């Protein structure tokens, strides 16, 4: 499905855009609760994955490539989460938070998910993309 920027994230983004608070690097996380992102979400709405081998991924300014146009888009390289044990956990989507504040920026449920992480070496790959319009 399309990513969703909840109301709380709009607040953060406008504060950044209008120079009320400084922008931060971001952290990419997977969520394991079966929810559909909604406008009223906060970071607490999501239950972070915790399968063995899971590590949230840091995204810095250098991670993003911004392409002007109509629409302008920002894309990061593909990011990979790796299982390091035999286990069983569904991941339903990903969310991006500010690294320092922990505040949510956006979330997206996997269109063809959830993905079951069950084997040692299973991978979940996410290519973050954000489009202006």
């Amino acid at each position, binding site marked *: 499905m399309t990513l969703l*920027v909840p*109301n*709380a994230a*709009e*607040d953060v*983004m*406008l*504060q*950044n*855009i*209008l*120079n*009320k*608070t*400084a*922008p*931060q*690097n*971001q952290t990419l996380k997977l969520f394991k609760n079966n929810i559909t992102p909604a*406008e*009223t979400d906060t970071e607490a709405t999501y239950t972070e994955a915790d399968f063995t081998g899971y590590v949230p991924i840091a*995204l*810095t*300014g*250098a*991670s*993003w490539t*911004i392409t*002007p*146009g*109509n*629409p*302008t*888009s*920002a894309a990061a390289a593909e990011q990979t989460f790796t299982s390091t044990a035999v286990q069983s956990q569904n991941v339903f989507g990903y969310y991006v938070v500010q690294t320092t504040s922990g505040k949510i*920026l956006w979330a997206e449920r996997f269109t063809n998910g959830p993905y079951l992480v069950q084997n040692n070496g299973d991978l979940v790959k996410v290519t973050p993309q*954000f489009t*202006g*319009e």
Partner: protein
Amino acid sequence: MSLVVVNAGEVSILELLFNKRAVFDTTLHLFTSNTTPSETDTFASYTEATYVGYSSLIITGTDWTITPGNPTQAVATQQVYTAGGPGLPETIFGYLICRGNPGHPLLWAERFTNGPYTLLQAGDAIKITPKFTGE
């Protein structure tokens, strides 16, 4: 009409959000060209007001009040341009919000819905309350 965030403005905003660019205050400008804002505009697409007493205004972070909700809104304190003497009359069609950097990189533009407004004499004023709505 609704404001238009130009393509170059989207780049600036995304670079800022993703921590690729240093923060900046914004500047507010009036334009006198009969221009309807469009996505491909830059600051050079507009003619800035020139009447005596005119200067662009700086809007800092503390000028903005952000109200979370659906949609989330940012509203700045009312900005007032007051005409001096020479250079009048001058007709104002809308305003621009730019990065406060040299060359005034354009972020967004809005043409006055019920404009233009003509400044006829010293003391005439144009008042703008900048607003930006997320959705």
